[in-house]
């Protein structure tokens, strides 16, 4: 049986060009730039100063607040400065700059490849490990993971859902990780199950990754409480709420969290990071990043130290193709454009995508022809065409009435609009307007 979410969704061309390339480790960069804010929530507070020597895995910034994450040194060397620097979107952020000197790791980190499947730690200890090692959601939202390990009072976690969907076109980092680190991921799932105390786990994988489904199904035979669920290929199935609906049929209520439906969702990348943090004591200092694009010479999946400048990843993949018009951090549907290639990759960067200039300009927008495409593809059931004109005219009450805040910004409406109207742009604007308005009211 193949599952999917019932309403809306689109089928953008897959273009998973790098799916067959196995993960290669990128050389340690000469300099790393660690933004203090690479997760959702409060930025971390630097605890190193200029001139400090750090080893790989040393803590360099600490979580300041409940929804915040620790940051660790991805290389060994000297802290050169803590200064404002232009990050991916062009804004200046506080960045800890470390100049690399050798590759000396903290002694506590187990660097062997051996798969350790015995879980010796208690639930409480696992949670601490996840917090201490700076694990955040690696699917792109970068929500600090330790928060999701705690079930609020009065709620019950019925199942754990592992997100191996990777519904964004082009990206294949999760796919490669599932193929190459399957055993580790299964141990990671057992760890999370133990920490949260859920009886069963489901791994949702889209059908366009048959090799991963097959591999996982074979291993799942040894794990009676873990079920692999093949999913219909449909964007945005990787969205938390859509995935829960697809796998369990349950709906997260408006304004609620997944736990309100009894589910907890973690990305496969996060699961692997949790495994490394708990079993190997390794902080989140590396991640798999797909470097791809139609004209990229060497489609690649790199294991990269976080904080490496984007330029180095692109150089390793054969450089920026001649007529590149747009560089995107993430996938083509939800990724953010990069203005400067000196910007570092962060914990949430799942891919670097280079679009040829012919594909990077939007077409001129025309009148809305009221075809209703945007309504039929919307997976949350809002009316994008309406929200767009409401946002244009700043009609705050109507925007709220038409559930603008429910939009998950998946971009299906802008993608399918035959009149090339920037629907999502205006919905975002509408969300901003509503947010400002509620702030003012308070």
């Amino acid at each position, binding site marked *: 049986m193949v599952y999917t979410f019932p309403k809306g969704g689109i089928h953008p061309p897959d273009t998973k060009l790098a799916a067959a390339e196995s993960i290669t480790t990128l050389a340690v960069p000469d300099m790393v730039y660690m933004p203090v804010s690479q997760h959702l929530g409060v930025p971390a507070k630097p605890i190193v100063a200029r001139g400090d020597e750090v080893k790989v895995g040393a803590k360099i910034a600490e979580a300041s607040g409940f929804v915040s994450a620790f940051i660790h040194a991805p290389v060994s060397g000297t802290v050169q400065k803590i200064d404002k620097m232009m990050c991916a979107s062009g804004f*200046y952020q506080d960045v800890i700059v470390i100049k690399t000197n050798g590759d000396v790791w903290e002694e506590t980190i187990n660097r062997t490849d051996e798969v350790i499947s015995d879980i010796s730690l208690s639930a409480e200890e696992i949670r601490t490990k996840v917090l201490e090692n700076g694990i955040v959601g690696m699917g792109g939202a970068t929500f600090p993971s330790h928060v999701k390990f705690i079930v609020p009072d009065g709620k019950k976690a019925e199942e754990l859902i592992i997100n191996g969907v990777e519904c964004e076109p082009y990206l294949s980092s999760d796919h490669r990780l599932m193929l190459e680190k399957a055993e580790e991921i299964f141990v990671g799932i057992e760890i999370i199950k133990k920490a949260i105390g859920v009886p069963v786990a489901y791994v949702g994988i889209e059908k366009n990754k048959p090799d991963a489904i097959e591999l996982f199904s074979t291993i799942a035979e040894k794990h009676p409480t873990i079920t692999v669920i093949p999913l219909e290929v449909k964007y945005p199935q990787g969205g938390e709420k859509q995935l829960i609906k697809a796998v369990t049929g349950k709906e997260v209520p408006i304004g609620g969290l997944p736990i309100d439906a009894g589910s907890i969702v973690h990305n496969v990348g996060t699961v692997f990071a949790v495994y490394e943090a708990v079993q190997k004591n390794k902080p989140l200092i590396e991640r798999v990043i797909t470097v791809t694009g139609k004209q990229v010479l060497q489609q690649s999946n790199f294991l990269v130290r976080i904080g490496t400048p984007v330029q180095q990843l692109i150089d390793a993949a054969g450089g920026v193709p001649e007529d590149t018009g747009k560089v995107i951090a993430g996938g083509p549907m939800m990724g953010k454009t990069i*203005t400067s290639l000196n910007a570092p990759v962060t914990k949430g960067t799942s891919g670097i995508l280079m679009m040829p200039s012919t594909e990077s300009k939007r077409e001129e927008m025309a009148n809305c022809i009221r075809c209703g495409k945007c309504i039929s593809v919307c997976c949350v059931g809002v009316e994008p065409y309406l929200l767009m004109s409401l946002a244009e005219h700043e009609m705050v009450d109507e925007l709220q009435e038409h559930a603008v805040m429910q939009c998950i910004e998946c971009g299906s409406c802008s993608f399918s609009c035959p009149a090339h109207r920037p629907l999502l742009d205006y919905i975002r604007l509408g969300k901003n307007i509503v947010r400002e308005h509620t702030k003012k009211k308070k």
Partner: protein
Amino acid sequence: MFFPVIILSSIGLGAAIILFFVSKKFKVIENPLIDEVEEMLPAANCGGCGYPGCRKFAQVFVESDDVENLYCPVGGGDVMKQIAELAGKIVAVQAQKVAVVRCNGSCEHTNKQASYDGAVSCRLADSTFAGESGCSFGCFGYGDCVPVCDFDAIYIDEQTGLPVVSTENCTACGKCVDICPRDIIELRKTNKKDLKIFVSCVNKDKGALARKVCEVACIGCGKCVKACPHDAITMVDNLAYIIDDKCKLCRKCVLECPTHAIHETNFPPRKIKEEPVKKPEVAEK
């Protein structure tokens, strides 16, 4: 022939009688002053006073005892004086204000770092990236401030890509100030000749960073603070700010600014006689 005439006339008569009694019965007794005050207001219904329309403002003005916070920016001091006299109240005289665009990052002063291709809206662009010039404080020039102006007092200059306020039309209602996502537009005190001096930059980055993205940015050097004889300039977060209440329009700071970030408007050209006196002063420093 007769019947229709009779029927129509009686319907008309009946309706008239009903209307007469209804208007007697449901008459709303309102202070006639409200009407008079409303007459005097500019009838722009812009909401600049904080109330929905001139009528509401008139009503609040007449009915409340404390009118200190009430001010019609469109009518300005004259109108306020008139309505205060009429209503027998005392209002503080507020200086006339005008909107000022505090950014000068036109194409000739900045380098293009990126080209934006999204919906034309400053507020949306603000959540997407820093700006085509790379300045994360400067004006986008996508003109969110233009349509909100009820008085056609602001437009985007095609040459510079920056908004320009027509001081004649501007009533200081503050709508453009509210809509600007980067707080670039400010209401500043003005006078009859519209003489103003202001820092045309809001970049809070350190000098080197600010200068890198824009030739005419305030680099926070502090020269103007020292030059000001009236203590009217403050320096917060690497950004100079001229307090308009204190500024005596002496124009000393304008000459000091190494990046020409301080602008003066509508002043007569400096007398040639003064120049030889002033020039050595600048050169000495």
